[in-house]
């Protein structure tokens, strides 16, 4: 790392943009169709926004608590089932259920952190990893027991395809994208502009120093985990209308969020959002370039490249 001169933020963004441009040209050459490429870009960006929100929650938890939360995806699935239940049984509009699922997941996050994870703070990474992995497995299996293995879906009565540049985007995906961006902005403002947010950033920067100035660090851990989990919950509700809801649906998002977090810089909240958009693009354009492969192949190629070339992520480690 020290061999190369550090690139400025603008230069790193320019490199990322150049890579995207090259990939776009390649995708166009490969598919021979502008519509295929613009469809991939549109779908990728829309989904990428949601990846960004999921990853923001994950990276916030990592940045402040130094915990890699393997239960993140399972918690997202809990919110999806919450939306399924409230929408199909109570007849609520799926997006209105956000008012229930996000606070509920916030509460679950608080309970998990204060009841279980706070006890492992400061213990070995492996302990924490096994704990969150265990919580994730437990949640998945409880969901499987309660709802069975039959896939569920959420119907949105007013869903309609929207067109742009010859590409088609379903309204539900556009709403998910805009909702994710809005919530991401809210989270950012909370962290930067409020007293609690400032305290959380202080804990991330230096827990000892934070304690020194009268901040209850364990309480901030609980709040942070709850906020991160609420992000996963909100994302779960936002994607519920266009994914098949199963006990393991969140897992895929969890894996992608890990890649996004590494790409954006571990603990970097803004980096997670940008990383989410880039990974959304990677997944869709990868599908165009390597049509016979799983779209995740390109995501993992990017993951490995980032680990080798820029392990601190595009935007460095910070919160």
């Amino acid at each position, binding site marked *: 790392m020290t061999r190369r001169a550090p690139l400025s933020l603008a230069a790193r963004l320019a490199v990322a943009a150049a890579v995207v441009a090259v990939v776009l040209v390649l995708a166009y050459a490969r598919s021979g169709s502008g519509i295929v490429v613009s469809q991939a870009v549109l779908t990728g960006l829309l989904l990428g926004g949601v990846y960004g929100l999921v990853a923001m929650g994950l990276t916030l938890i990592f940045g402040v608590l130094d915990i890699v939360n393997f239960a993140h995806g399972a918690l997202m699935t809990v919110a999806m089932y919450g939306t399924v239940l409230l929408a199909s049984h109570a007849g609520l509009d799926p997006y209105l259920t956000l008012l229930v699922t996000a606070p509920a997941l916030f509460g679950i996050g608080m309970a998990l952190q204060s009841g279980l994870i706070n006890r492992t703070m400061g213990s070995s990474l492996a302990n924490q990893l096994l704990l969150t992995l265990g919580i994730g497995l437990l949640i998945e299996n409880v969901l499987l027991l309660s709802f069975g293995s039959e896939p569920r879906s959420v119907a949105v009565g007013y869903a309609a395809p929207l067109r742009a540049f010859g590409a088609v985007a379903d309204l539900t995906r556009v709403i998910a994208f805009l909702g994710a961006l809005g919530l991401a902005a809210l989270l950012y403002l909370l962290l930067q502009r409020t007293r609690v947010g400032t305290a959380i950033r*202080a804990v991330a920067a230096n827990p000892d120093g934070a304690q020194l100035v009268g901040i209850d660090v364990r309480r901030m851990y609980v709040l942070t985990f709850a906020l991160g989990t609420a992000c996963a919950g909100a994302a779960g509700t936002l994607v519920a209308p266009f994914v098949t809801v199963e006990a393991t649906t969140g897992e895929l998002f969890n894996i992608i969020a890990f890649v996004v977090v590494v790409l954006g810089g571990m603990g970097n909240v803004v980096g997670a959002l940008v990383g989410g958009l880039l990974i959304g693009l990677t997944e869709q354009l990868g599908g165009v370039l390597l049509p016979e492969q799983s779209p995740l192949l390109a995501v993992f190629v990017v993951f490995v490249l980032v680990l080798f070339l820029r392990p601190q992520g595009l935007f460095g480690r910070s919160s």
Partner: protein
Amino acid sequence: MTLLSVRGLSKSFRGVRALHDVSFDVADGRILGIIGPNGAGKTTLFAAVSGGVAADAGTVRFAGQDVTRWPDHRRARAGLVRTFQLMRPFGAMTVLDNVAVAAQVRASSRAAALAAPDAVLDRVGLARYRDQRSTELPAAELKRLELARALALRPRLLLLDEVLAGLVPAERGPVLDLLGTLRDEGITLVFVEHVMAAVMRLSDEVLVLDQGQVIAAGTPAEVTGDPRVVEAYLGDEAALASGDDGDDGNDGNDGNDDDADDEDPETPC
């Protein structure tokens, strides 16, 4: 009135006795200097009083309340505030924000918290670094930042862990003057310090620790005349009499916690 009262404080780490039956009082508005050779237990005592280390036995009473089992942050909010010898800045945040984090504990709103730091930064001489990231500050300035953060909490009692370490002699005078004005404002000070001249100049009382025990306590004059102190800590009576750093010639056995480099033999503050 007694602001801080420590009784029978003991602490062992894996069988090694770091503190044994330490008792002392600090009256409101006084300055207590704590000295002792390396490994005497000064840092452990600080941590036990401020909350970082849970004592095995003994009590710490602050402003009439038993704070022995209180977590650090609660003690800090009560006005029992410490600084660390090795600084704990909030790296990526600006100097202003670093202090604002402390100020917001006392402030009624975020706006008030953001307005408070300027006066404090001005006092400790950091005003010109206001908008820089704290990672960009030189070590000596970080020391001031640590002090600024502690002051923003409006402490009643300030525990200072080697505030002069890392400062060149010319920088020490202003810091000592500042500590003097803090006392005049009613802030009680307890400090651990290696720069002996500073301890003698500033302290109303001095507590001498050796191997986890209090071996002497009293006014600077009383303590320096105590043969046990001379034997345990100073080793060289001449150094003490001359009012010098006190570690000339005995660096070999007394050692300075971890910054022997900034002890300057010829230095009066």
